[in-house]
């Protein structure tokens, strides 16, 4: 079975679709290590984002994945770990 990788582009697309984007933030800039809160996303936005990732990638995220992953890099790594993608992002 071919493994699908969850990329930063996937995350940005899902954030924009599910929660929108703050006009004061450049999502296309270097955001991998910027906190979600700083990017303008509160816990409900991350819940919505998590739900969309689960649907699209066919995985189940534990609640603490979303609360523990404070940055895009951490969330991407957590999702790829579930997808079986090694050492991604």
């Amino acid at each position, binding site marked *: 079975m071919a493994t699908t990788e969850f990329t930063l582009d996937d995350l940005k697309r899902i954030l924009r679709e599910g929660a929108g*984007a703050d*006009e004061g933030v450049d999502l296309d800039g270097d955001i991998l290590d910027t906190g979600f809160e700083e990017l303008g996303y509160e816990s409900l936005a991350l*819940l*919505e984002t998590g739900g969309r990732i689960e649907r699209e990638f066919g995985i189940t995220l534990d609640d603490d994945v979303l609360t523990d992953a404070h940055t895009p890099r951490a969330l991407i790594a957590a999702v790829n770990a579930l997808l079986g993608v090694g050492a991604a992002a």
Partner: protein
Amino acid sequence: MSTAVVVTGLGVVSPNGLGTNDFWAATRGGKSGIGRITRFDPSQYPARLAGEIPGFVAEDHLPNRLLPQTDRMTRLALVAADWALADAGVTPAELPEFDMGVVTASHSGGFEFGQNELRKLWSLGSQHVSAYQSFAWFYAVNSGQISIRNGMKGPSGVVVSDQAGGLDAVAQARRQIRKGTALIVSGAVDASICPWGWVAQLAGGRLSASDEPTRAYLPFDADARGHVPGEGGAILVLESAEAARRRGAKVYGEIAGYGATIDPRPGSGGEPGLRRALETALADAGIRPDEVDVVFADAAAVPELDRAEADAINAVFGVGGVPVTAPKTMTGRLYSGAAPLDLAAAFLAMADGLIPPTVNTEPLPEYGLDLVGPQPRPAQVRTAVVLARGQGGFNSAVVVRGVE
């Protein structure tokens, strides 16, 4: 002596005008916003006309982050609140956050948002329902979003009493100001012209089935046949008169009196409660009936309700004793948004020396009302009464008064 509470800002979103100036120009001119529904295909429904707000593009007014989490009614309310605060000359970020609150009314919550999420639930499954459904449909969401957007952490809430709620919210805002909060954003915006919202309104049994925009909503007319629903309303900025004076604010007028009653149990034969609501509001304002220059009617356009309203007005003012108008004949009934829009119209009438018209209706002489006709009536308006009734027996009246 209770603190006087005044209105210092208006934000209007109405089917016949977006923004206060457009609304008032249209309303003075008798321009209606009622037409065949365009937001969905109404052909299979027993009622097909509505007062829709044309040309509102939320993206032009609101941050992108707010769009996935807001129903149309909330987007309209947020923009109306922005306009009301700008009109009042208030920059919320410069004021202490606990000195500002938000009290709005809601009739049905965010139906269109809820409809979309329910459709996803039964067609795609629960995983597809937006996390924002948790609050986006909710009655209190307009108050909450206005509060968050403007950093207002003082007393806040929502009142749900159908059309009467638009006045009940303003009364609650006045209470909070009298208890010490400097500024409350109040009023209401409803918008549920979507299939789910529409069938809910049809279930109320009071919608007009007419397809003629000029013959569909005829309060006090022999052909009264129910109402046309509309979307929109008005957001008002309320402050204590003293706070407004201190900062040199422009003042539209005072929320001078309020009364609210509940009708007796149906079938009990008791008198409807509207007269007592009206008398209570006048007493609260400390004025006599002959000091009132105009009454903005609830205008149900259901014969027995028109009769009850005419009886209440005549009992207090005498037959033909006060000019009565219903500019909502140009917008449809906006549910909790209706009375705040009438309050805005009352203040604009004061400023303009002009009572706005009631269009299309030919009033039955037996109602004994001095109904302002299709032309605006020049008049000095210093004191006005707004009436609003909600399905389920709610009656509310507010007296507004100009300030020197």
